[in-house]
């Protein structure tokens, strides 16, 4: 009795470890064989349930990944056979007669590059791309993903199901894009990774650190699956350099600490060195792109003498050629103000109101520039709007302190 219970515990532990590290790999291999996202998801759930029983009784097999893959494959065929639809029964026959590969070894082929591009396909809603990537590649639970977006768990579950169903029904290919589509589709993937990274900043400190880690995991995975791509290297560099300052971004009360006031001894030197090394390698490939530029901007902020604003302005000029968006214009104007041209900056920021009226950093930047040029009343009104739009306590605390300083 005791033995059975401890066997089940050991099996559950082994399974949890596998799901954390290898769920993406398993899903990728399973989808490649089944050609159906939803079926793969269901079959893997079945296989895990089956593993708890079998492994609990007989011990964890020597090649647990191969065991799970084989079992999930058989479960998928069972599901297809039990289906009332003739089409699905035909699918089952096709799978049964297909060449059966032996997966006893743990070296199942890594199909995750295809899976990443499928999850981040632009035919899916951006939010669904992020959710599907976190669920499928990173192995986060639906519960945790719902928490990231402050959604109810069933709502997130439905979103994931809809996305998987669309992949099959709309014929979204399970493949690495053709060369002519590569650059554009890679930007979509990197956008998802960056969104995972920044999503954390809206939530709690715990949440933030976890999501930053997931984003770095994804960027590292992409870099290992497709080495020597300068934009992938640039994206990873950007994440590492930004994340290196994580611990110094808030003081002990949880209020945001602006960069010049941050305690540099709390920056992670190893992450910074790795990020800068990656950025150098990327730039030597002479194929500039938005993520390399953003990483270069992040690097310009952490120099020994503080932020190199004139250089940052030039980098934003380059970034505007790739991303002519109002947000990039806003950042460029802020850099211009810091580089000693606050009046020009204010004149450039004002007209962005129409497009960025609901964007908290716009009102914060506007307030700052108005305060510096002595327009106190307008500055306070802008701080009020920024505070009303802020979503986390650290930002609210920082903005309130700034507004108070202007009042005095």
């Amino acid at each position, binding site marked *: 009795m005791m033995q059975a219970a401890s066997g089940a515990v050991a099996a559950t532990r082994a399974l949890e470890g596998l799901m954390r590290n290898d769920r993406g790999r398993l899903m990728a291999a399973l989808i490649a064989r089944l050609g159906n996202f939803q079926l793969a998801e269901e079959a893997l759930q079945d296989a895990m349930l089956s593993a708890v029983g079998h492994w609990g009784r007989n011990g964890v097999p020597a090649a647990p990944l191969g065991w799970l893959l084989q079992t999930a494959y058989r479960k998928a065929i069972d599901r297809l056979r039990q289906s009332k639809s003739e089409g699905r029964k035909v699918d089952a026959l096709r799978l049964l007669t297909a060449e059966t590969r032996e997966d006893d070894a743990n070296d199942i082929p890594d199909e995750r590059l295809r899976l990443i591009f499928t999850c981040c*396909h632009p*035919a899916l809603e951006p939010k669904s791309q992020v959710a599907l990537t976190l669920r499928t590649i990173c192995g986060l639970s639906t519960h945790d993903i719902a928490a990231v977006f402050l959604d109810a768990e069933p709502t997130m579950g439905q979103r994931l199901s809809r996305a998987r169903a669309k992949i099959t*029904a*709309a*014929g*979204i*290919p399970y*493949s690495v*894009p*053709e060369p002519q*589509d590569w650059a554009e589709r890679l930007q979509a993937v990197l956008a998802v990774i960056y969104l995972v990274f920044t999503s954390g900043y809206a939530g709690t400190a715990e949440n933030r650190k976890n999501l930053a880690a997931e984003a770095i995991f994804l960027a590292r995975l992409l870099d290992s699956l497709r080495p020597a791509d300068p934009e992938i290297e640039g994206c990873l560099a950007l994440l590492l350099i930004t994340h290196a300052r994580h611990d110094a971004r808030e003081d002990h009360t949880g209020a945001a600490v602006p960069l010049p006031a941050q305690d540099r001894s709390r920056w992670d030197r190893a992450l910074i060195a790795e990020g800068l090394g990656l950025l150098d390698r990327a730039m030597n490939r002479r194929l500039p792109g938005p993520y390399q530029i953003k990483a270069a901007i992040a690097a310009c902020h952490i120099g020994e003498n503080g932020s190199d604003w004139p250089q940052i302005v030039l980098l934003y000029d380059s970034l505007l050629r790739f991303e002519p968006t109002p947000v990039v214009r806003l950042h460029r104007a802020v850099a211009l103000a810091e580089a000693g041209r606050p009046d020009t900056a204010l004149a450039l920021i004002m007209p962005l109101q129409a497009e960025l009226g609901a964007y908290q950093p716009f009102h914060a930047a506007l307030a700052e520039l108005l305060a510096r040029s002595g327009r106190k009343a307008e500055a306070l009104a802008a701080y009020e709007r920024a505070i009303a739009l802020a979503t986390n306590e650290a930002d609210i605390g920082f903005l309130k302190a700034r507004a108070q300083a202007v009042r005095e």
Partner: protein
Amino acid sequence: MQYMLLIYADPQREPKYGTPEHEAMMSSYFAANRQMKADGVLVAGEALKSIDTATSLRLNRGKVETMDGPFAETREHLGGYYVIEVPDLDAALRYAALIPTAAYGTVEVRPLMTFNPAGN
């Protein structure tokens, strides 16, 4: 897979007949047609006459109700379609991008259920 490419456009924004812009649009359509035929993906395709010619019909408790004009009160109207046979959505999107109306309207890409009621 078969996809229908539904071409929606706002008549106000479309190039007017007889202008150089209209001519450029038509030659882009001819080029798209040629490409789809040459690649062997074109199943069908037609342009529709203007929405002034549209008649909509509903059955209300078995009684036919006929209305002038298109069903939906939107600014963009269905102006034509293609049906293409391609391996996947990426291929379908590449052909959809050849349709010149995409520059000032919308091309909706929808997979067909292909149960072929016409039986051909």
